[in-house]
């Protein structure tokens, strides 16, 4: 109880500090700490799936992307500071913020008791999917459309990052050239960690059907295992014009949509699985999506191509 209160207080404190921070780098560093504390809170709430995703995607990957954004912004001219709002505006902003806070509080207080829950229905229908993890059941069967859209958003994000390519760089290798280290601990880490990390990622993907885990967590680890040798200068990223690269990024959502359409033909509903085929089909989607998302997440971190000098 005391530990939970301390955790909640720490989350609030870090969140406020992140908003109040004057320097963007400080704000991002605090945001990463916020994500890690938040994943601890999810662990305390027994939502291990959410905790894993928050730590890997919310704190880790988003943090790296934000740090990259800070570096890009720092190289530009300082944005002109907005003039401070007048007295009337300040009062209006205060009233509006108070209204939002009051509305949020009212919503929380007006929640029916007991809170509405679909958990019994999920538990009752989970055996039809052949899965053991209710979270995976919801993500891949009951609400598969949401997951499909999520995977498409990742694909879209890669296209958006690539569309930032400056003139003369299109089709080239993405990301700034990494310094070649002759020797050192990073090189050692980049050599010994990927085999371990790949095993852990495959394990997390495979247990996802029965226990906390799944494709997004596994893909985040796989992406890190690619980024590490890239940062150490051991591997060069492929040119974004490479056909296999584009195919790998796109194949996950495409297979997902194809299986969904097959369900529409045979079962009469988009993303419906034939009886008895749910688990194998979900496994196929999970494995292919992991590959696509892993490559997409790594490409997001690596960034757009830079024109060759």
């Amino acid at each position, binding site marked *: 109880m005391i530990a939970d209160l301390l955790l909640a207080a720490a989350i609030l404190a870090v969140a406020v500090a992140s908003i109040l921070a004057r320097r963007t780098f400080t704000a991002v560093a605090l945001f990463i700490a916020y994500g890690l504390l938040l994943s601890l809170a999810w662990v305390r709430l027994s939502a291990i799936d959410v905790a894993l995703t928050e730590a890997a995607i919310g704190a880790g990957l988003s943090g790296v992307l934000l740090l990259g954004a800070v570096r890009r912004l720092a190289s530009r001219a300082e944005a002109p500071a907005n003039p401070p709002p007048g007295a009337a505006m300040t009062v209006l902003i205060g009233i509006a913020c108070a209204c939002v806070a009051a509305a949020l509080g009212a919503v929380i207080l007006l929640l029916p008791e007991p809170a509405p829950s679909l958990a019994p229905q999920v538990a009752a229908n989970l055996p039809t999917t052949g899965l053991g993890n209710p979270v995976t059941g919801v993500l891949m069967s009951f609400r598969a459309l949401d997951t499909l859209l999520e995977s498409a958003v990742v694909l879209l994000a890669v296209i958006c990052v690539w569309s930032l390519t400056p003139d003369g760089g299109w089709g080239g290798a993405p990301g700034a050239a990494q310094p070649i280290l002759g020797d*050192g*601990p*990073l090189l*050692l*880490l980049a050599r*010994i*960690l990927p085999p*371990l990390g790949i095993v852990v990622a495959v394990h997390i993907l495979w247990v996802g059907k029965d226990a906390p885990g799944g494709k997004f967590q596994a893909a985040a680890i796989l992406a890190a295992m690619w980024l590490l040798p890239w940062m150490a200068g051991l591997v060069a990223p492929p040119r974004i014009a490479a056909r296999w690269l584009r195919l790998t990024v796109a194949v996950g959502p495409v297979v997902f949509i194809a299986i969904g359409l097959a369900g529409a033909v045979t079962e009469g509903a988009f993303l419906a699985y034939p009886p008895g085929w749910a688990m194998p089909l979900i496994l196929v989607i999970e494995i292919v999506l992991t590959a696509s998302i892993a490559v997409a997440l790594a490409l997001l971190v690596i960034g757009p191509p830079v024109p060759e000098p």
Partner: protein
Amino acid sequence: MSLLADVFTIVAVLAGLVFFIAGTAGLLRFPDTASRLHALTKADHLGLGLIVLGLLPRAGGMGGALRLLAIWGLVLVSSAAVGPMVARLTRGPEGRE
């Protein structure tokens, strides 16, 4: 036997916490980056190592114990890689302060 294991856990975890507190104090109070890294690595290596050691009797079997040891090993390797990176960044490309 279980009392002995409990005492071992408490002593080892407390000793680990001492290193974490010392490391945090050093991180906050030391004047320059190199000394701060020095303080931080003590917390990472010895503090976490002692806590892992203390939790081993409670790991519930070989698998849990091996996982705990793997976590310690991975933290050791990664902080060993991150420390020199931070140090190199603060010294700049020419190796000056």
